[in-house]
C-alpha cells in the first residue's frame, strides 16, 4: 500500500492548515475528505472574521478557504475529495472508500481534522420538511444558491444562529423571530445588534412548543420558559413560517478516534466526546494527532492555528525538523491561539454572568436579553464620543479579541492596543476624515460615522449595508433605531461601494439632528404612515 509521511483526514481549515505546515517542512502529505468540495465549513462563511491581522480578521471566511487551497496546491499537497476514510487501524493504516472501491494507505503520522456536526433538538413536529439545521440553511444559501424559505424562525442565539439569521436576511428571507430557551444571547452582542436593527425580534427564555403543518412546516408556536425550563402557560406566540432553523450547538465527530482505541474524555465545554491530547494535538496513540473542532468545538480561526501547530509537530515527530525549531515555530502560534481564547467568551467565562468589562464599563444586560444596546447604555462606551463634524461612533461593548478597526483608520483615530480584547477607544485629538474604512472593516458592523453638523437641523449617519437591492442616492425611506423601530424619515445622500470595503457598502443617510444617536439602519420605501 502507498505510504505517506502524513495523512490528514479532513480538508477543512484545520486539515488544510496542517497539511500546509507539514509540506513546508518537507513532508509528503495527502488529505482525504468525504465531501465533493474542500474547505469544510469555510466556504459557507460569507461574513468577515474577527481577531487580528494574524487571525485573518476582516477577511470573509470563503476567501480564507480559497487562500488555503491555493497555498496547499502550490506546496504539492494532494487533496483527494469524495474519499471517505472508513477506519484508522493499527500502525496508522487507514482504509478509504473512493467510488466503489476500498483503498489502503499507510501514514507515518496521521492528523485527524474531521470537525464537528450540528446538534439536534426535538420538539413536536420537528421531523416535518421545513425544519432544517442552521448549517443546512447556510449550505443551501451559500453553496447551492437556493433560498431556504421565505419566512423563517431561528432557534438558537449562539454565533451560528445569529450569523445565519443575518445571512438569511441577505438572501431575502424574512426572519420573523429568533428564539432561545436560554435567558441571554449566547453569541457576540454585535452579531445580535446587526439583526435587531433590521427589525428581527428576539425572544430569549422561549422554546418551540410545536411546528405545525401536514406535509411541511406552515407555522410555529413558541412559549416562554421559567428558570426550571418549564413552559409558562399563557405565553404562547404563533408565527406563520415555512422554515424553522435549528442552531443548538455542534458536537465533535471523533468517532474514528474512539474506534481506533484513542483515550477519550467527555467534556461539556468542548462539545462532547473528545480525544485526550497534548498541546501539540498528539493523542494517546503515538503519531496520531488532532486539530480543529474534532478536539473541541471553537471556531475556524482557532482550528487553523491548531492545524498549523499539529502540522509542525508531526514534522518534528518524524525528524524533519528538530525540537528547537518546533518550539520556536509554535511559540508564536500558541500565543495567537491564546489571544483568541480570551475575553468575555473565553471558556473559563462560559456560564458566568459578567457585570463589567475588563475596563470597568457595565456589560449591557439589555443587549444580552433583547439583542441591542439602549441609547443611554451606548453613551458610556469609549468608542462613543460627541464631537463636532464627522466622527466614528463605535458601539462595541464586549471584550472580544478583535482589532481591524484600529488598523483601518488612516488617521489613528481608533485605539485598541496590545491587548486586542480591549474595547476600542476614540482618540478625540485625532481628526476624522470620514473615509469610512473603519465602518467597512468592522466585522461586527458596529461602527457608524456620525456628523451632527451635516446641515442646518440635520445629521448624517454612515452605516454598513450588505443587502440587495442597494439603495441609491436620493432614495427616501425610514431610519430604524437599534431595536428595528422606525424613528424618522431618512434620505440617502451617498452610497459608497469602494472595492476596499469588500462588499460592505457604506450608506449615508440624512436624518433630523436629534436622531443622530438613534438612527442606525435604513429601510427604503414610501414614507406615508
Amino acid at each position, binding site marked *: 500500500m502507498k505510504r505517506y509521511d502524513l495523512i490528514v483526514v479532513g480538508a477543512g481549515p484545520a486539515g488544510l492548515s496542517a497539511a500546509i505546515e507539514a509540506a513546508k517542512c518537507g513532508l509528503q502529505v495527502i488529505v482525504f475528505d468525504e465531501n*465533493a468540495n474542500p474547505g469544510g465549513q469555510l466556504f459557507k462563511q460569507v461574513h468577515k472574521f474577527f481577531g487580528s491581522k494574524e487571525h485573518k480578521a476582516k477577511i470573509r471566511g470563503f476567501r480564507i478557504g480559497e487562500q488555503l487551497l491555493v497555498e496547499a496546491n502550490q506546496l504539492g499537497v494532494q487533496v483527494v475529495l469524495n474519499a471517505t476514510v472508513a477506519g484508522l487501524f493499527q500502525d496508522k493504516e487507514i482504509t478509504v472508500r473512493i467510488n466503489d472501491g476500498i483503498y489502503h494507505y499507510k501514514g507515518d503520522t496521521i492528523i485527524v481534522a474531521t470537525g464537528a456536526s450540528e446538534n439536534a433538538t426535538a420538539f413536536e413536529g420537528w421531523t416535518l*420538511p421545513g425544519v432544517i*439545521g442552521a448549517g*443546512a*440553511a447556510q449550505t443551501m444559501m*451559500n453553496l447551492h444558491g437556493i433560498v431556504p424559505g421565505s419566512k423563517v424562525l431561528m432557534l438558537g442565539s449562539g454565533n451560528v444562529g445569529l450569523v445565519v439569521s443575518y445571512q438569511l436576511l*441577505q438572501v*431575502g428571507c424574512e426572519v420573523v423571530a429568533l428564539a432561545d430557551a436560554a435567558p441571554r444571547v449566547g453569541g457576540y452582542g454585535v452579531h445580535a445588534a446587526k439583526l435587531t436593527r433590521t427589525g428581527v425580534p428576539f425572544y430569549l427564555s422561549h422554546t418551540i412548543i410545536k411546528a405545525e403543518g401536514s406535509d411541511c412546516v406552515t407555522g410555529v408556536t413558541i412559549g416562554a420558559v421559567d428558570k426550571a425550563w418549564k413552559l409558562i402557560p399563557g405565553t404562547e406566540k404563533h408565527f406563520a413560517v415555512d422554515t424553522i432553523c435549528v442552531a443548538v450547538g455542534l458536537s465533535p465527530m471523533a468517532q474514528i478516534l474512539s474506534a481506533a482505541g484513542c483515550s477519550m474524555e467527555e467534556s461539556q465545554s468542548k462539545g462532547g466526546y473528545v480525544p485526550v491530547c497534548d498541546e501539540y494535538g498528539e493523542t494517546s496513540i503515538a503519531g496520531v494527532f488532532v486539530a480543529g473542532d474534532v478536539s473541541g468545538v471553537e471556531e475556524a480561526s482557532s482550528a487553523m492555528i491548531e492545524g498549523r501547530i499539529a502540522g509542525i509537530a508531526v514534522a518534528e515527530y518524524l525528524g524533519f525538523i528538530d525540537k528547537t525549531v518546533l518550539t520556536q515555530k509554535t511559540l508564536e502560534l500558541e500565543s495567537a491561539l491564546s489571544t483568541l481564547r480570551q475575553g468575555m467568551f473565553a471558556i473559563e467565562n462560559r456560564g458566568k454572568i459578567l457585570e463589567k468589562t475588563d475596563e470597568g464599563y457595565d456589560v449591557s444586560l439589555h443587549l444580552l436579553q433583547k439583542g441591542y444596546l439602549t441609547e443611554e447604555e451606548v453613551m458610556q462606551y469609549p468608542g462613543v464620543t460627541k464631537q463636532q463634524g464627522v466622527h466614528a461612533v463605535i458601539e462595541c461593548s464586549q471584550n472580544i479579541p478583535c482589532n481591524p478597526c484600529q488598523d483601518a483608520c488612516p488617521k489613528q483615530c481608533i485605539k485598541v492596543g496590545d491587548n486586542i480584547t480591549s474595547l476600542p477607544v476614540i482618540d478625540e485629538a485625532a481628526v476624522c476624515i470620514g473615509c469610512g474604512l473603519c465602518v467597512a472593516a468592522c466585522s461586527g458592523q458596529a461602527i457608524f460615522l456620525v456628523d451632527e453638523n451635516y446641515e442646518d437641523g440635520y445629521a448624517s449617519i454612515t452605516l454598513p449595508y*450588505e443587502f*440587495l437591492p442597494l439603495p441609491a442616492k436620493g432614495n427616501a425611506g425610514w431610519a430604524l433605531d437599534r431595536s428595528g423601530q422606525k424613528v424618522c424619515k431618512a434620505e440617502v445622500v451617498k452610497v459608497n461601494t469602494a472595492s476596499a470595503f469588500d462588499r460592505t457598502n457604506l450608506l449615508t443617510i440624512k436624518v433630523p439632528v436629534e436622531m443622530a444617536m438613534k438612527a442606525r439602519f435604513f429601510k427604503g420605501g414610501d414614507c406615508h404612515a
Partner: protein
Amino acid sequence: MNARIIEHPILGKIEKGRLVEFSYNDTKLNGYEGEPISAALKAAGVMVHRHTQKQGAPRGVFCAIGRCTDCVMVVDGKANVRTCITPLTDGMIVQTQYGVSAKNHQGAEERS
C-alpha cells in the same frame, strides 16, 4: 418568491452549469447539471422527499450535508440516495421514496 438566488450581496452573481431536464415522479422538471438534486427540487417547490417506513410520515431536507439521510429518494431506480449531495444529471429519474426500499407502496403498511 424565486427560490433561486440570482445575485447574492456578497457572493455576487451565482454561476450555474447547463440547464437539464429530469423527471420527478410523473412530471418533468428543469435543474442545473451538477447541482444537488435537492436544490433543483427545492427550486421547483418540492418539500417532501420520502415517506417513512413505519408512520408514512413526510420527510425532506434536514442537514443538507449528507449526514442525516432524511432527504433520500429513489434515483435512477436505486433507493436511499442522498439527494442533498448527489449531483443532478441530464435525464435523471427521481422518485419519492416510500419506506426503506425502491418498492413503491403508499401509506404505512406492514414491513416489506
